[in-house]
């Protein structure tokens, strides 16, 4: 699946999880002006893991603690609204947490 033929919900989150791939993540990130490094992947994989385990898309605080990436660093990695950007790129739903 590539960027042209994926479906998203009205807010831009991936409609079908099966569509997600690392390639797609790279494309989605590039669209947001982010080029994914190892540090980005640590954050993204953590978000995906928490979502898979708990069935609930995590907020930044959980992602930060579990990935051992400080909040400040996360904002550097994903400058424009990290909670939304991470969920969109990681192919998980809009975060269900306020923190």
């Amino acid at each position: 699946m590539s960027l042209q033929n994926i479906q998203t919900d009205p807010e831009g989150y991936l409609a079908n999880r099966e569509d997600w791939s690392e390639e797609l993540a790279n494309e989605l990130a590039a669209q947001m002006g982010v080029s994914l490094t190892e540090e980005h992947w640590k954050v993204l994989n953590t978000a995906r893991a928490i979502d898979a385990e708990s069935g609930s898309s995590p907020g930044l605080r959980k992602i930060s603690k579990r990935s051992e990436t400080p909040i400040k660093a996360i904002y550097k990695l994903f400058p424009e609204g990290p909670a939304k950007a991470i969920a969109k790129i990681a192919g998980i739903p809009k975060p269900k947490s306020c923190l």
Partner: protein
Amino acid sequence: MTDSGNEKPRSLSVICSKGSFDMAYPGLILANAARMAGVDARLFFTFWGLDIVNEKKIDHLHLNLVGNPSAPLPAMIAGLPGVEALATVQMRKEMERLDIPPIREFIEMLDDAGADMYGCQMALDMFKLTKDDLVPQVKDVLTAMDFMDMSEGAQIIFI
């Protein structure tokens, strides 16, 4: 979904005017939610709200039960010495369970998230405080008019 490109970026100004433990959180949570969603956010601490960023008070904010119709206790009991303190301890525990950070940590988190925080000049004068009495994350001390200028085009929330 694509942005139309001609909209101005969203921006949020939160005015925190209350210093009780329970009323400190809503403003902090809203500003944090804004930053997580890519919305610019700033906070203005005025009157009792200054307690939230007062170095001496930030770790000791109290729940407000007396005169609060939502309090789980009759006002007469809520007013007894130590009752509010006890209720505050209970609420702190519950928040810890939910991993909601204590106020000081929350202020640090907001600073890391790029939210700007300001103290109210008039309130500081009234309480005979200076910027040095506030936590270091408070960027500056402003007049209400300064804050209004800074909030041009922003959505304003008063708490």
